[in-house]
């Protein structure tokens, strides 16, 4: 079956299921008895298995199948959730994620069988249910073989079911507590259209009465309608045989039901004999497994061929899921746009010049309104909640907590804060970096924390919120904080700053040092309470997104990294200025005020021009010098200074002339041209002229 058209959906949904599994497992780890969570996990694992099976990803299916077995036992209360179990399950999820990554790249799940995880799962299953060594997979094959053999040989209405060890164990247990064990074969009417639905209803009815521990064909196959008109189950129940029968017959379109009480004698109850019989079948089972393997290989080859064609790029396009309402709004706006256009067209035909004029202006205004709304809506379509990035962090912190042997908890707020898709794609790594820093170097060990009078469990906070045209993400911890003196010392040792500079350096500037590239070396990590691991990389990335990052810290109380990001990248409000006869745009977001400064107000500090603006000393930046603009001949009476801010730092940009505020579309100037990052991009003005956008972050 060609399933490639479903690949995109498969990947999306698998990702969702994996995410939900991750989240639910985290809850389960804390509340091992939470029945809702267990059910949720079971459902997710089950759908995952079904989906992987349908798509022909055998390895993925097998792994999920084994995980599902474990969940199923937990759900039935036959096993307890242990820390070891959760660890293995998490490993399983990681393995599934890597399958998914492979599939996304090449439409193929790869060749890693993750045998270790599967073995571990089975071992846990055995220990949890207390039974001997067995190979689950082979067992499955054995069942399949013997059932088909029996079905052909005996025309008996009740189909014989072979039981695996753990099922046998469950049956024994049930007998012990006085439950009845029935083998049930249900025949569904042959003109039934939705036999899977009927089967589902039968299962539902049975599950109300007791536990279905086995079915043939497997539940998944039944759900996928991969059975004829009959199926068999083993039911553990306290109810009488008649009650069960009636319950099944209540489901419409069930033709016949045959029940039989299952006796222990039917089962080879000695381990020796059971293992013997298993051995007897092993040969055929392996053969069957071989055949399966071969067909699987053939399938894979088929997939491989299609994958090879588009080898170089991922098989799936990046997509955004859009709320249908947002699309409706867009549609409406587009129809308004058409109306506006028609308005203009009809004006053109009208005769009176006066009416022409006023009508024209009216239409232009209308058009402007529509385009503004259109822009807003398109931006909204591009917006994605930050949740899609941060929801993997609780899991990461949990793993780190285990690995580092420190107690810590991640608290997140504002996951629904929305950011542009491009930003979302890029922001994950920097955030992860910061969180790892906090966990690794910020949070102290339990003993240290106790000694410092803090609670033993460290807290890391990830808060996201919107602030005007920016989105702010804070990564905070209540750990040891950054030792500023050590940072300075290390900077001096590295020759980044001199002793004098260090002495006069403010705490803020010292922390800034952490973001310098030279600080991302290994020695520093150990020297300076561990901070500074690739923070320059984080900073670069965030600045590349048009944002900035700032660190605050208090020794002994923790540190706080504050990231500011623009809401959207593509369109911004900017102030247009003139320098000489060139036009430049300064993003409005970084502008504080615009001042008229007379020459007498310019003071000199260390031969650098500064102004004293309402008590704060602000350095002046002569843009025309930095940008090599041919200066104007006439000297103005006073300077026009645009005060810009980068974090808390201010600077005054001297410009020749202000043009005004304008909404501009940012375009890249290409990768071939080299400009020392002063220019953040370019935009096209109304008259078709190109204006460059100044990157304030590099200027200040």
């Amino acid at each position, binding site marked *: 079956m060609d399933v490639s058209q479903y690949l995109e959906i498969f990947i999306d949904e698998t990702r969702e299921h994996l995410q939900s599994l991750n989240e639910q497992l985290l809850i389960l780890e804390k509340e091992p008895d939470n029945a809702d969570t267990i059910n949720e996990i079971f459902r997710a694992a089950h759908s995952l298995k079904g989906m992987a099976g349908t798509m022909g990803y055998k390895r993925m299916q097998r792994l999920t199948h084994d995980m599902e077995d474990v969940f199923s036992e937990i759900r039935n209360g036959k096993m307890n959730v242990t820390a070891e179990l959760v660890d293995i399950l998490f490993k399983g999820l990681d393995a599934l994620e890597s399958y998914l990554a492979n599939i996304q790249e090449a439409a193929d799940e790869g060749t890693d069988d993750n045998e270790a995880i599967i073995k571990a799962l089975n071992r846990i299953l055995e220990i949890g249910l207390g039974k001997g060594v067995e190979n689950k997979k082979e067992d499955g094959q054995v069942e399949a073989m013997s059932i088909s053999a029996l079905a052909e040989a005996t025309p008996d209405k009740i189909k014989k079911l072979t039981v695996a060890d753990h099922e046998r164990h469950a049956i024994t247990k049930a007998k012990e507590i006085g439950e009845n064990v029935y083998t049930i074969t249900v025949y569904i009417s042959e003109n039934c259209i939705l036999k899977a639905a009927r089967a589902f209803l039968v299962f539902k009815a049975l599950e109300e009465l007791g536990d279905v521990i086995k079915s043939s064909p497997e539940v998944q196959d039944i759900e996928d309608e991969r059975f004829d008109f009959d199926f068999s189950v083993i039911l553990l129940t306290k109810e009488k045989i008649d009650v069960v029968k009636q319950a099944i017959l209540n489901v419409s379109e069930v033709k016949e039901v045959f029940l039989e009480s299952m006796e222990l004698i039917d089962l080879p109850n000695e381990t020796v004999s059971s293992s013997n019989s298993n051995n007897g079948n092993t040969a055929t089972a392996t053969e069957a497994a071989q055949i399966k393997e071969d067909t699987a290989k053939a399938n894979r080859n088929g997939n491989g061929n299609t994958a090879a064609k588009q080898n170089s790029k991922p098989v799936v396009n990046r997509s955004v899921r859009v709320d249908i309402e947002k699309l409706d709004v867009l549609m409406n706006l587009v129809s308004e746009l058409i109306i506006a256009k028609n308005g203009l067209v009809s004006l053109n035909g009208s005769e009176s010049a006066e009416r022409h004029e006023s009508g024209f202006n009216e239409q232009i205004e209308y058009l402007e309104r529509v385009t503004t709304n259109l822009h807003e809506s398109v931006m909204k379509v591009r917006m994605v909640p930050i949740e899609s990035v941060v929801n993997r962090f609780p899991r990461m912190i949990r793993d780190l907590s285990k690995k580092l042997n420190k107690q810590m908890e991640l608290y997140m707020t504002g996951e629904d804060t929305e950011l542009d898709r491009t930003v979302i794609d890029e922001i994950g790594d920097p955030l992860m970096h910061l969180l790892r820093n906090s966990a690794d170097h910020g949070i102290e060990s339990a003993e240290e924390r106790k000694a410092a009078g803090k609670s033993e469990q460290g807290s890391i906070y990830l808060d996201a919120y919107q602030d005007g045209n920016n989105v702010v993400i804070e990564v905070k911890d209540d750990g040891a904080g950054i030792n500023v003196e050590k940072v300075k010392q290390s900077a001096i040792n590295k020759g980044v700053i001199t002793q004098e500079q260090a002495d006069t350096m403010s705490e803020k500037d010292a922390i800034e040092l952490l973001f310098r590239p030279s600080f991302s070396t290994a020695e520093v990590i150990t020297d300076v309470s561990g901070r500074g691991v690739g923070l320059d990389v984080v900073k670069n990335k965030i600045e590349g997104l048009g944002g900035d990052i700032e660190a605050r810290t208090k020794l002994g109380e923790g540190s706080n990294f504050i990231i500011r990001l623009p809401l959207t990248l593509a369109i911004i409000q900017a102030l247009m200025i003139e320098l000489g006869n060139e036009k430049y745009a300064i993003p409005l977001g970084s502008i504080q005020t615009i001042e008229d400064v007379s020459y007498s107000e310019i003071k000199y500090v260390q031969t650098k021009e500064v102004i004293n603006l309402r008590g704060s000393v602000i350095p002046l930046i002569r843009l025309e010098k930095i*940008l090599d603009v041919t200066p104007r001949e006439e000297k103005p009476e006073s300077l026009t200074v645009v005060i810009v801010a980068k974090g808390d730092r201010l600077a005054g940009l001297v410009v020749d002339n202000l043009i005004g505020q304008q909404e501009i579309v940012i375009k890249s100037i290409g990768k071939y041209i080299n400009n020392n990052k002063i220019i953040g991009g370019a935009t096209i003005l109304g008259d078709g002229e190109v204006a460059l956008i100044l990157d304030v972050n590099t200027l200040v």
Partner: protein
Amino acid sequence: MEEKISVIDGKQYIVVKIGNEQYGIDIQYVDNIVRMQRITRVPKAQSYFKGVINLRGEIIPVMSIRLKFGLEADEFTNSTRIIIIKLESQSAVGVIVDEVKEVVTLNDSDIEKVTHNSKDEKTSYLSGIGKHGDGLISLLNIAGVIIDKEIN
């Protein structure tokens, strides 16, 4: 690229004039030829980049081959053209030429390879010499011209 030229028969080249010489640009990289237009200077860029232009809403950097080759600066005339080169999708570059003359088809036999002198970067700008009629055409290795070795 040299290999390609020697294998495939009859490649088409756009012949342009820069100074007194004729140069050939492989037509498969040429996206467009536009008239000279207003170029917005980009500060601190490489000296041979004249700036950027707006080509139907796309910002395209424009370089001067003359400056790159160390010739005297361009004089813009009525016949000056910007040839828009696309090496890969999404990133186009314009190169300024004095005049666009014609399109010629050159066979393998018409092309003489040039030997590369690793010391002289300029030789890597050429992929061969084409003979067309009486004239000689220096065939540009356009990737070598556009991509700055210092950057990459």
